[in-house]
């Protein structure tokens, strides 16, 4: 299904984009590359510290709470719910992009609205998780959890956890704001007048990137 390029097509002889995408979309890709390196630097720094430590808290012990059900221990259940919400909102975003390609304004609005809801749900979950950990005594500079082998843990664990999930949460927050702006612009008919919905695609790229980063954050903090 890959985009087929006619044989002998000269992409670099001028007069056309050698990447076959619009300028703004290409620049969004390059912005996301740089952002990927920022997140990469954070996560690799976390990895280095973790490799240099003799032990580390057990994520199954730390992240075992779920709202409402109280004391029951359900390791990783809540964070899986968050992952599911984010993947789901990625799907609705793709649907919005697809609806934009066939200029279906109503459908774009519907899917964008659902994507925003997903983003807000994710932020709500993260707020609950942070509040819960804070109540257990975890925060920047404070770590109530022990290492998995029963030795004294350092604050590296909480510092990295709150910094990186916080940075990711801030990206989700910006994504929600961007999506709200896109929804308003769709509603006003801006893209209809312009003749294309490429802005939705650019916002979509950013939104999927946020999902992509979460995949790595999820593995690094909750599974490894």
């Amino acid at each position, binding site marked *: 299904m890959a985009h087929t390029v006619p044989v002998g097509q000269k992409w670099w002889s001028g007069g056309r984009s050698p990447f076959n995408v619009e300028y703004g979309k290409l620049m969004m890709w390059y912005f996301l590359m740089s952002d990927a390196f920022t997140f990469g630097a954070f996560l690799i720094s976390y990895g280095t*510290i973790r*490799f240099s430590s003799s032990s580390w808290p057990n994520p199954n012990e730390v992240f075992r709470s779920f709202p409402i059900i109280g004391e029951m221990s359900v390791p990783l259940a809540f964070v899986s719910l968050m992952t599911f919400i984010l993947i789901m909102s990625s799907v609705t975003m793709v649907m919005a992009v697809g609806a934009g390609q066939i200029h279906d304004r109503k459908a774009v609005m519907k899917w964008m609205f659902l994507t925003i809801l997903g983003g807000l749900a994710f932020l709500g979950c993260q707020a609950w998780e942070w509040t819960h950990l804070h*109540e257990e005594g975890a925060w920047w500079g404070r770590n109530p959890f022990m290492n998995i082998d029963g030795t004294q843990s350092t604050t590296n664990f909480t510092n990295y956890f709150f910094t990186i999930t916080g940075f990711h949460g801030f990206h989700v927050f910006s994504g929600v704001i961007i999506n709200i702006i896109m929804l308003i612009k769709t509603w006003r008919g801006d893209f209809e007048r312009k003749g294309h919905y490429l802005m939705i695609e650019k916002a979509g790229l950013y939104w999927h990137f946020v999902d992509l980063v979460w995949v790595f954050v999820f593995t690094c903090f909750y599974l490894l």
Partner: protein
Amino acid sequence: MDSSQGTTTHFEKEKTSFDTKAVWRTFWILLGITLFELIIAIIYYETQFFPKHILNGVFVIMTLAKAFFIVAEFMHLGHEIKNLIMTIAIPACLFIWFLIAFMWDGSSYHELRMRYDSYQYEQSKTKVVQPEKHEEGKKPGKE
């Protein structure tokens, strides 16, 4: 965005190659991989059945698989032309060096600490007494 009119004519309009089925297939793959990861994480937590190192390798491979599906399908990179794919994929290869170098550095640091830093060494051998668990009910405003 004043040049957008111009740019649209410059690149070949994609013939709405939007495929709802492919999107849902990607969704199910991602969900499936995530659930599988969780199940083995929880089985490991309950039974400590297999070595954690192997498990971590499995997690990393599955994470990369998920990343591939998100980038290729959701971000549509798999359907762009090769020029674009390469300008993204080649710089991303820096991560290979990045990971090897820094993880290596971290474990070397660990070895040095264990050998020369007697305080760190003691700490890594001393078990702490688990502090009394907080009574949930004692805290005000908590369900």
